[in-house]
């Protein structure tokens, strides 16, 4: 992010057309970041924003439609099959999505990047082991592996986060390792070593900053993936405890009543899509703005 400031600062002194051109690469990241920030705020202030307790049942008002489809303002987005307020459940559901997005993606970042840097920087046997480990992990479709892990660990928010970390660290590891291999060949790495830097200091001061833009981009994309994986797991009932509202659970519940109440199904789907779109725009925007050459490598 810090690179935006000099770009914007320089632009102030330039003629108007150039100024627009220099901000242009950031437009996508700004839009994505705004979406993500908005959903973050909703998640943080959920108790203040939600009109009802998300688990409060009102059996006299089941499957109410949203206000634009003939419902009333008591429940602006309608209710589900137990008469629970859809708006409140959507608002509280953003908490699970955001907690998983931040915690699981950061965990995968730390694990994947640490292994990638160790492997790429030191090479040799360490690199061989890490590469084989990644190959082993890639034998599984990610959904299948996360499902197996959840069966092993049991359900619950913490286990879901752990499962996603243990599945998705390879996304960071593969890409960052390849980048570290490139960075390592630069003369300034040798220069740092010759100047007496320890390995740890060289990694911290020279290698890490060089791969940071790449990591930031994958982090954002990974947050979107984590939201989807959590939704998948909660859709099949293998995510958070049943008392915690989650978007995937809402979809699974509403599917049974899709003939009578289609909005109960559409709204949580839209919530997921908008969230993932926000993360993808942010990641994609960061990629374009930080380094156009990265395009190829980050995509996967």
């Amino acid at each position, binding site marked *: 992010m810090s690179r935006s400031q000099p770009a914007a600062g320089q632009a102030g002194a330039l003629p108007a057309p150039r100024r627009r051109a220099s901000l242009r690469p950031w437009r996508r990241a700004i839009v994505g970041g705004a979406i993500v920030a908005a959903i973050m705020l909703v998640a943080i202030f959920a108790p203040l924003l939600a009109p009802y307790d998300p688990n409060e049942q009102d059996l006299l008002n089941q499957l109410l439609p949203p206000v634009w489809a003939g419902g009333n303002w008591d429940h602006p987005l309608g209710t589900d099959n137990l008469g629970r307020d859809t708006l409140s459940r959507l608002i509280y559901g953003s908490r699970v999505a955001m907690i998983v997005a931040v915690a699981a993606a950061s965990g995968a970042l730390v694990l994947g990047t640490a292994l990638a840097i160790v492997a790429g920087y030191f090479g040799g046997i360490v690199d061989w082991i890490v590469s084989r480990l990644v*190959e*082993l992990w*890639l*034998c*599984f*479709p*990610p*959904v*299948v592996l996360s*499902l*197996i*892990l959840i*069966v*092993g*660990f*049991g359900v619950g928010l913490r286990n879901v986060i752990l499962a996603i970390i243990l599945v998705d660290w390879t996304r960071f590891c593969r890409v960052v390792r390849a980048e570290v291999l490139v960075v390592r060949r630069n003369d300034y790495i040798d220069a740092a070593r010759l100047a007496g830097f320890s390995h740890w200091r060289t990694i911290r001061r020279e290698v890490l900053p060089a791969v940071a833009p790449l990591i930031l981009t994958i982090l954002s994309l990974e947050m*979107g993936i984590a939201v*989807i994986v959590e*939704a*998948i797991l909660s*859709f*099949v*009932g*293998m995510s958070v405890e049943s008392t915690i509202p989650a978007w995937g659970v809402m*979809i699974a519940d509403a*599917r049974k009543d*899709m*003939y009578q109440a*289609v909005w109960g*199904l*559409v709204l949580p*789907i839209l919530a*997921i*899509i908008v969230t*993932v*779109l926000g993360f*993808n*725009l942010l990641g*994609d925007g960061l990629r374009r703005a930080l380094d156009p050459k990265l*395009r*190829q490598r980050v*995509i*996967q």
Partner: protein
Amino acid sequence: MSGGVLGVALRRIGVSLPLVFLVSVLVFVVLRLIPADPVAMSVPPNATRAEIEALRAEMGLTLPIHEQFWIWFAKAAGADFGKSIAFAQPVSRLIGQALPATIELVVVAAVFATIIGLAGGLLMYRVAGGRGEAASDLASTLIMSIPEFLWAIFFILLFGVALNILPFTGRLDAGITVGRITGFLLVDTLIQGRFGAFLNALSHLLLPSMSLALGTAPLLMRVLRSSLMEVGNEDYMMMARLRGFSERRVLVHHAFKNAFLPTLNLMGVQFSFLFGGTLLVEVIYSYPGLGSLMVQAVANTDLPVIQGVALVYAVAVLLINLGVDLAALMLNPKLRIAK
């Protein structure tokens, strides 16, 4: 020439076998972490402690974990995954019934994904630099943000419920039965000359395979477009244009041929993701494949089934990657010389 391809194929299979072994170790160990007791779930609630202990010994659960693993692995190598706890049937039979359905779905979806991905990539390249670029960029980002299981639900709502023009449960309409020869409905119906049933099976495949294809295609589009852009600056493209070839001919005969390889490499990864995507799509469409079996097994904590299906998934992914690598090898002579 084919000798080189064969050699690489054999070498790749040699690398894959230890991976399959490690995969089975991984699955076995993870599932032993399980908090629930598989014995407690397979006995009636009034079973005595002695009966439970007897069953535990019979199931081999009293043995040390590495011995349990070797017994299971030796049998699994001969496609014997034990007996399902919930279905009281051999796991291999359950997998045998479900696997052709999933393969059929994956193949049809992969065909759709390839068509959409390649056509979309060419289209995105054509509009690049023009007014359409921003729109096509945004559209591909939006489509990429929609995972296959949301497409699946969306298609059910649109084509199944609202328009009511396509079926969205199972592999065939309720009244139709097809004799089982290969297990692939599209093949079996044609062998038996039943075109009505063929069309019925195809119509049942349409929505689930399109959901999977749309979850896979956008990335193919993007990679194809960016490799087309890279190729676009090459001298031979300029030469072809100078020789007066039409833009379409230059695109298809010169640019596409060279830009296709990175896309093909990506397809290996993407199609193994697609294979994983079947899991939820099958559940949503009540499609009796491997994914439905897996989710049922997970709901019942049916360990023998989970282990067997997980292993089949891993082997399938390895085979897909092998196939894509060999295809790349056959299409790109440079790879053959380099190794």
